[in-house]
């Protein structure tokens, strides 16, 4: 890699970072699932990390690398704390919906309700299955069934 030109590499890497950042932003803004929102946030962080490392490479300075390490650290902390809050929120509403938390709205503004929801996803989801092995355990009628969808 030593023969690479520095400035084009920087520009290309920055472009990759910008694309990742923008996609993450769009994800944050659109997706209603709290978990996916967090994934999008992490994606934005990835874009930043790529840009930082690219600049670090360009300038021959360690600062970018060090910053990315801290970004990793903070991302880990953020994920830990935020997931806890997501769980708490889920346990209160039974949903992972960001729009479930609307009570900050003005008193005279009505609740936003999703219209034109598709009935049920028509595309069946297929998950890989393991080959059954051993003896089938006896079925318990009271035990809730395994979910077929995730």
């Amino acid at each position: 890699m030593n023969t690479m030109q520095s400035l084009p590499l920087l520009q290309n890497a920055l472009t990759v970072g910008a694309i990742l950042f923008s996609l993450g932003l769009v994800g944050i803004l659109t997706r209603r699932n709290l978990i996916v929102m967090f994934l999008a946030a992490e994606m934005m962080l990835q874009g930043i990390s790529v840009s930082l490392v690219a600049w670090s490479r360009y300038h021959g300075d360690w600062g970018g690398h060090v910053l990315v390490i801290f970004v990793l650290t903070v991302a880990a902390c953020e994920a830990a704390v935020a997931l806890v809050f997501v769980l708490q929120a889920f346990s209160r509403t039974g949903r992972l919906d960001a729009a479930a938390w609307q009570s900050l709205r003005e008193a005279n503004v009505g609740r936003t309700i999703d219209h034109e929801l598709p009935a049920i996803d028509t595309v069946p989801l297929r998950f890989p299955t393991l080959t059954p092995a051993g003896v089938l355990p006896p079925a318990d009628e009271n035990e809730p069934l395994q979910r077929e969808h995730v």
Partner: protein
Amino acid sequence: MQEFSPSTLLVLVPLLPLVGAILTVLLGRTLGAKAHLPAMAGIAAAAVVAIALLVATARDVGPAHGAHAEAVRPVEMISTLWNWASFDAAYTPPAGSPATDARLTPRDLAAAEDVRSFSIPVALRLDPLTATMLTIITCVGLLVAIYSVGYMHDDPGYPRFFALVAMFVFSMSMLVAASNFLLVYVFWEAVGACSYLLIGFWFTKPEAARAAKKAFLVNRVGDFGLAIAVFLLWMTYGTLDFHDTISSNGVIMPGILGQTRLADAAGYAGGAVGTAICLLLLLAACGKSAQLPLHVWLPDAMEGPTPASALIHAATMVTAGIYLITRSAPLFAACPGALTMVSIVGATTALVAALIGTVQNDLKRVLAYSTISQLGYMFASLGTGTLLGFTAAIFHLLTHACFKALLFLGAGSVMHAMGGVIDMRRFGGLRRVMPITAATFFVGAAALAGVAPFAGFFSKDEILAALHSKGWPSAHGDHHAAAAADGPFQLVAFSTDAAHATVTAPAVGLDALDRPETWQILFWMSLVTAGLTAFYTFRAVFMTFTGPTRVPEGAHGHGGHDDDGGHGGHGGHEFYESPSAMTWPLMILAIPSALVGWLLFSTNWLAHFLSATPSLTAPAVAATATPHVFHMNLAIQGTLAAAIGIVVAAIGHLGRRSDGPQLERFLGPLQTLFANKFYFDQIYSALIVKPLEGLALVAALFDRHVIDGTVDAIAGLPVALGSIVRRSQSGLLQRYALVGVMGVLAIVVLLTWQLRG
């Protein structure tokens, strides 16, 4: 006195009461019933120092030389403590004012060039006038403080009272010791504040709170006059200092009352500006000394504790106006019209207040109107503008301080014994149950009424003489020869010789008032007032102390002398006399009330002493010096007037029940007029208070509806706008985030656009 420099001692006089006041405030709760100690110690020490200063000053003045007045060397000592404020190039002398007047010497012009910096040195002065005033203030203050130990002993505000009294003594000492008009103004306000706080001492009583407010507001009118006067003085003279100062380059800058200007015959502004200054000073003095038309606050001020009334509203603070005019004597001497106004105001006040006093049934109110009346006397005397007039006023101030404090403390003693009752119709014959109070009160009353040889007789006689000498100048014209011929006891013939009424220059405006006819009227008014004074004083004495002994329900006796156990006091055998802390000041004050007049008059000590005051050595004042004589015929007239008054009072009240029919019923409608105090309060209410209240109502409505409406409308604008924007507040987190991102994006796009190429 050589061990202590007088300047150090002079600082101690105000400082010690101040320290006492601060200590009382700090330690008041700790000391409890002994809270009077710091204040009293401070005032007592200040009194000792003040007497020492008086002696030292008297030594400087030198002994009096017989009956002949001669030019006295002015005595003053200035002690500059620090420079309070200093600004450069603050003053540019206006064209035509004395500072740039061609009459001034080149040295003065050089000084005027140099004077153009504004500095307020905190300077104290010691001269005969200040020494006299300091002695009166501290001594009366000390006696009142001692008296208050008994009078206030079970009051919850005990420490507060003594702190205020000490604070007042400090302020008043500074007022008379300050050597600068601005400092005078500061402490003029300070004594007003102390007065306000002491009138409203029992602030839970609505009458007291209202009286305090009234006193404060009425005093504002006078203070306004003083403030304008100070401004005018600054514009006219370029300085506010009394004394000469020496600038850094060695030029003498003449103070308003300094030796340089005093020696200059034309050093003081006459005409419109001078008259305006003098009239404004007179307005200030009227406010503080309760003269017509600003006298209305003093009778109401009697709602305060009686010791405070004695100290502030009889003996000391109300004399601040006398002090101010005496101090400004050279200013007034340049404006004869203003001087005449002083006398007119004084004599009118004296007569009106005396008339009102004749029908009052409240013992303290009688004394209050008497105070107004006597202060009017002093103003009338000051207005003559002669050395005799000024010294007589201060003489009367001194004797009045003694006997009026005595009378007030006596009234307080009565009130204390009667359980707070002060209406003379509800008690009587108290001389049998309160012998000490009765005796001392009688001495004070005799002094007030001008009965020879009590103190008031001599000072009143001098005032009448001063007025007489203006009304009939020919009778006093060749006084030197007459004095040589007749000795000290000179018979003055009445004369209405109109020849002396002609003035050398055609007088205009107010100056036209300065005619012998005016002074003759004023003299007769004063003489009538003397008779009225004697009447109402002895009416009060007879109603309170003679007749069948009666005390109101609720009075607290101190155990009967016999065993009949009669309650309520109709038996008259219970002993109601006040505690010794209250009777001792009475007895002490009774001595000067009886003797000080004769002592000071016969030796002529006070007049000689005061004539060394720099203000009174101004040529215009000093030239009017007259030999010290006893005006026998005036004394006869005065005594006659007093005797008539006493006799009428005796006819009406001696030995009668005080709640019986009164003599005044013969006055008919006049009695209604007097009892309603000439309707001053009603007139003020109709002319000033009600219109102002209407104006305030209009302003309040304007404020509430126009201004508040505008503000509310402006405040409603964001609300209206917000109600539009509010619909976008969906509570959806991502929508908020989208809007934020779009905002950031707009900025980024704009920046990229600006930074293109």
